[in-house]
């Protein structure tokens, strides 16, 4: 930037030569203000989602951008097309970005051994494998072939599950299907609560 450019960018100069004599508007605008744009304009894509809190089912637009750290959520806000929510969100829905991007989210599998006093990290495949062994063990220990009258039960009372009201239908479907095939019956969720 040459000296003349520099002077021309000086608001006092702009005050004296432009329409904003009092230096309260146009003349005082900073370069950043002149170039501003919403961060959603940087989004690589906008995907359609649904708020994960209550059951109204407000539509959300998720703006995804990327930087050196990979892809990240730039913004989540209401989708005005929705006949349910008309683009509006409550405080929880409005906090969705913090929900999914906050540092409270765990990223690693954690394991607490029997009688342990601390967490320890475990890699995911190992954890799943250990869990599968325990599932089979609990299933066996709680297995009931028949009731007292000899009627078939074909089930285990050794495994219980709770959860599903914030999960997808597809997920609930697989949960129920797998546990049913295992013979587990104590499968419950928030709908009972």
């Amino acid at each position, binding site marked *: 930037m040459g000296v003349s450019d520099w002077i021309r960018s000086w608001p006092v100069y702009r005050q004296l030569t432009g329409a904003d004599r009092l230096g309260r*508007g146009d*003349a005082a605008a900073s370069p950043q203000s002149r170039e501003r744009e919403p961060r959603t304009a940087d989004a690589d894509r906008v995907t359609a989602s649904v708020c994960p809190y209550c059951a109204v089912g407000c539509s959300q637009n998720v703006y995804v951008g990327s930087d050196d750290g990979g892809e990240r959520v730039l913004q989540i806000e209401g989708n005005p097309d929705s006949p349910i929510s008309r683009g509006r969100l409550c*405080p929880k829905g*409005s906090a969705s970005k913090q929900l999914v991007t906050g540092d409270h989210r765990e990223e690693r599998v954690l394991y607490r051994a029997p009688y342990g006093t601390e967490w320890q990290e475990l890699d995911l495949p190992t954890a799943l494998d250990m869990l599968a062994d325990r599932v089979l063990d609990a299933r066996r220990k709680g297995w009931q072939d028949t009731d007292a009258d000899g009627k078939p039960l074909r089930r285990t009372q050794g495994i219980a599950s709770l959860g599903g009201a914030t999960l997808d239908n597809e997920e609930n479907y697989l949960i129920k299907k797998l546990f049913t095939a295992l013979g587990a019956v104590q499968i419950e969720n928030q709908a009972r609560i």
Partner: protein
Amino acid sequence: MTVSRESFYGPLDDVSGDAGYTEHPERVGFFTDTSVCIGCKACEVACKEWNLLPDDGFDLLGMSFDNTGELSANSWRHVAFIEQPAPPRESAPAREADAVDLGLPSFDLPGAGTGEETRTDFRWLMSSDVCKHCTHAGCLDVCPTGALFRTEFGTVVVQDDICNGCGYCVSGCPYGVIDRREDDGRAWKCTMCYDRLGDGLEPACAKACPTDSIQFGPLDELRERARERVATLHDRGITEARLYGEDPNDGVGGDGAFFLLLDEPEVYGLPPDPVVPTRDAGSMWARAGVAAAAFAATAVSVFFGRSRR
């Protein structure tokens, strides 16, 4: 442009033009209709999410459901909660007169009519406060760096790349809106989502507001809508409904963000009749000039006359 009295006080038709924008969009603003506010605070959260504001502490204030307290450098929307007796309604529906006769015996019940337990004269007011984006903005006028400036939309915005934290705006605001962020040193307040406006988006709070208590749009349209809303409420017997900050003849030349209130402004923590300090700038400078002249005259005069050496 010529500088005139209107640039500092009184009604001003073209605020952006006055700020040197020769071509500019319509002036936009907020109309916050508190009669439909449900106090959900979506505005507070949506604002923070968009503007990446820090939290404001985790203190229980014991003021109904208000734990924000007031507008601040970190909270650009603030929902006030007021629990109070409700005003009597002239148009209250007739009661026993048109009651259906049930053919059942009626009798006085124990405790009936003692007042407390049958009380219905109670209400809970909620209102989302925000920067007023005044026509004559005290903060903007006093800012010595031009960090605060009038945008082409007629709104008032702090430019964080300019602000040096002198703090003058904090005392310049007759509404107690703008504040300096402690660990940051700069002044912050609502920008009416200046970055979003440029892209044709509405501000985050107005977009989120579930009941459209916060309405965004061209100010002239909002004023028209607000007047109609008041008329409707008056027709329904809500005679205490009134507009606040809508009048271009008020002490700040009318607010860019105005309100429909159901009680006096001070009940919501708003000043009843704010005035931009700039109104009196002329007389203040004149008085200062007189004082300066007297000061000068005294300084000269002390060197005359016989010295008591």
